[in-house]
């Protein structure tokens, strides 16, 4: 990669494990890889500690004590909502790993959980700023190297296609860097298409693009239309709190059927023609207090605008959270969160979360549990993979795997060409009538437009230095959008959060996860691995004992 106007020499590093990303999943992967004895480097687009959807927010955690009845209830509670695509084997191990991880966060991480009044702690949620500050301290104590403001731009592979490192750009030093690594963990988050949903603008789907370029598959990309409720003109999303709200039309009448979970589509449909107002008027004084102490940032916009959300009406909007809170992502190929590409692991929202919540996540708690668990497994898996490499691996050739935005097939476009691409993609994925209120008649033309954008991206989008980062983000969003709508058109039914107005029913024969792969040509097929539901899991346990 070439950079014009470079002020310093390129940085060249070597590591056992390279973790791309800076949110919870990246931090857990880094921490666990270091504990497993690997020499690790973390490279984040932003700052590990403030980066990503968790740091600026607060989240419940799918934390359930190891009591069989409670665990069973926890697993069963989400199966129907997720369209029965979740997997009991994975749910059970995520519950185990999350329980252990939260214990570590309390003990080694010294996270100040609230007391439960009986000498213990309540560990069913975390406040983002504190959580990520503690994780960074843990990482520093573990002696890992952190490269902040150093977005990974592309993967490097050896001649057999195994991932052998990354190349990126340090934006505050204006210099490119390269890290040779035995294994790479992608923990770059989902893709929210620069919608300004809280903390999500670093999440542009970069990891999915890089994984696909290396040959990895994705899964569940039709489950990519999560929208969060926010006060109009604000960035602060916290949809759960709107469970205690009433929604109103412009004329002051109650918007019947509107709600935070099941009634969000009613809000979307109404927003197409008029403003929607809201008041959190079903929260009693103790719930109001719990909200204020639970997620103080929720109240920042209200307090600063001088609006009491419990007594006054305020206009709301829906912000796209895409695959940050949708469940699609890079396919997980085994229990260590490996992908189908040797040396490439995946964790957090960059990975599919269908395994724990199928085709729907209305809440962050499953994602938070998945970040801890998948980060732990991917970190350990990557460390093990790296340690098992022959010494000659340190002399592997490093072949750049990046295409779109870095190596155009035609004449390079203007340096700010990425802006036009981003706008074109947003025009297809942000509108409620296309992405949220899905219909084949609208998805088809939207996908055709996105394919045309991709052709332009591939032939002419180009950037160097900081421009390469912008170009790659735009390319990643374009690819992401095409996978989403390809899968959305392929799934000829409604399931989980994927609701088709033209195909409102669910069909048992579609109780399969859908895999997509490819960039110029996209292929889609049912996952040969069927979801393990309660019955299948019980049969499996019986056979094993």
């Amino acid at each position, binding site marked *: 990669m070439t950079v014009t106007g470079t002020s310093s020499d390129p940085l060249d590093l070597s590591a056992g494990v390279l973790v791309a990303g800076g949110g919870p999943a990246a931090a857990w992967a880094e921490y666990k890889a270091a504990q497993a004895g690997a020499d690790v480097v973390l490279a984040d687009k932003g700052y590990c500690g403030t980066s990503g959807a968790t740091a600026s927010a607060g989240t419940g955690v799918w934390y*359930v004590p190891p009591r069989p009845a409670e665990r069973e209830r926890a697993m069963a509670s989400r199966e129907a909502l997720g369209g029965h695509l979740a997997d009991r084997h994975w749910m059970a191990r995520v519950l185990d790993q999350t329980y252990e991880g939260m214990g570590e966060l309390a003990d080694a991480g010294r996270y100040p959980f609230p007391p439960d009044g009986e000498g213990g702690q309540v560990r069913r949620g975390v406040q983002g700023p504190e959580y990520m500050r503690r994780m960074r301290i843990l990482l520093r104590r573990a002696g890992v190297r952190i490269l902040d403001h150093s977005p990974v731009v592309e993967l490097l592979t050896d001649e057999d296609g195994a991932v052998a490192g990354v190349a990126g750009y340090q934006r505050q030093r204006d210099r490119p860097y390269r890290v040779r690594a035995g294994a790479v963990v992608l923990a770059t988050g989902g893709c929210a298409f620069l919608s300004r949903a809280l903390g999500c603008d670093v999440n542009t789907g970069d990891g999915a693009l890089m994984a696909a370029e290396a040959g990895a598959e994705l899964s569940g990309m039709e489950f990519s239309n999560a929208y969060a409720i926010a006060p109009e003109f604000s960035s602060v999303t916290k949809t759960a709190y709107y469970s205690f709200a009433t929604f109103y039309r412009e004329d002051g009448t109650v918007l019947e059927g509107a709600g935070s979970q099941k009634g969000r589509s009613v809000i979307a449909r109404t927003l197409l023609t008029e403003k929607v107002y809201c008041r959190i008027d079903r929260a009693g004084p103790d719930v109001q207090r719990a909200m204020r102490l639970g997620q103080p940032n929720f109240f920042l916009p209200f307090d600063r605008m001088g609006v009491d959300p419990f007594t006054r009406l305020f206009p709301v909007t829906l912000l796209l959270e895409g695959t940050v809170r949708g469940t699609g992502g890079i396919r997980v190929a085994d229990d260590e969160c490996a992908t189908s590409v040797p040396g490439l692991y995946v964790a957090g929202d960059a990975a599919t979360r269908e395994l724990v919540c199928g085709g729907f996540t209305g809440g962050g708690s499953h994602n938070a549990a998945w970040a801890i668990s998948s980060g732990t497994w991917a970190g350990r898996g990557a460390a093990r993979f790296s340690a098992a490499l022959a010494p000659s691996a340190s002399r592997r050739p490093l072949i750049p795997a990046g295409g779109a935005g870095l190596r155009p097939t035609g004449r390079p476009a203007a340096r700010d060409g990425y802006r036009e691409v981003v706008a074109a993609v947003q025009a297809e994925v942000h509108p409620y009538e296309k992405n949220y209120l899905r219909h084949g008649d609208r998805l088809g033309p939207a996908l055709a437009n996105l394919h045309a954008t991709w052709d332009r991206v591939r032939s002419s989008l180009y950037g160097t230095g900081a421009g390469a980062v912008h170009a790659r983000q735009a390319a990643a969003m374009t690819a992401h959008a095409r996978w989403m709508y390809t899968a959305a058109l392929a799934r000829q039914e409604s399931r989980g959060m994927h609701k088709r107005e033209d195909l409102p029913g669910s069909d048992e024969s579609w109780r399969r996860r859908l895999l997509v792969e490819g960039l110029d040509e996209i292929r889609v097929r049912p996952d040969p691995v069927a979801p393990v539901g309660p019955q299948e899991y019980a049969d499996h346990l019986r056979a094993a004992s």
Partner: protein
Amino acid sequence: MIEIVSRDRCVRCDICVKVCPMDVFEPGTDGVPVIARQPDCQTCFMCEAHCPADALFVAPLAGPAPAGSPYTDEAALVASGAMGRYRHVIGWGRGRTPGSRLDKNFVFTARLAASGGEGPSRTDASGDDAGVSERQPEAS
């Protein structure tokens, strides 16, 4: 979006330059960081939380504040106590209790679960503890 770096309060530590996940700030020639790329600001309030001098103010708007907006009036914001407020409520800074220690989100989630996940009916906002179950929270 970020609107104010207070010259009076700034201690020239460059922490905001370091912690902003969107790389919005740049070190200033006189040591006071400048807002170099405001359109990139994602309004996440993280710079405010990390500023040890309460010198920053992020307006609650996802776009830039219009000219003459109260969100750019530093003297008024200082007088109203808005600057540093967020850091205060999350309990960062010497002698403060971490906000997470006081977290009562579990009360909210228990109440939400008790209502079947969709919140109470409009006539049921009394706030008594009856029927709180151990069902898992739906927090997001």
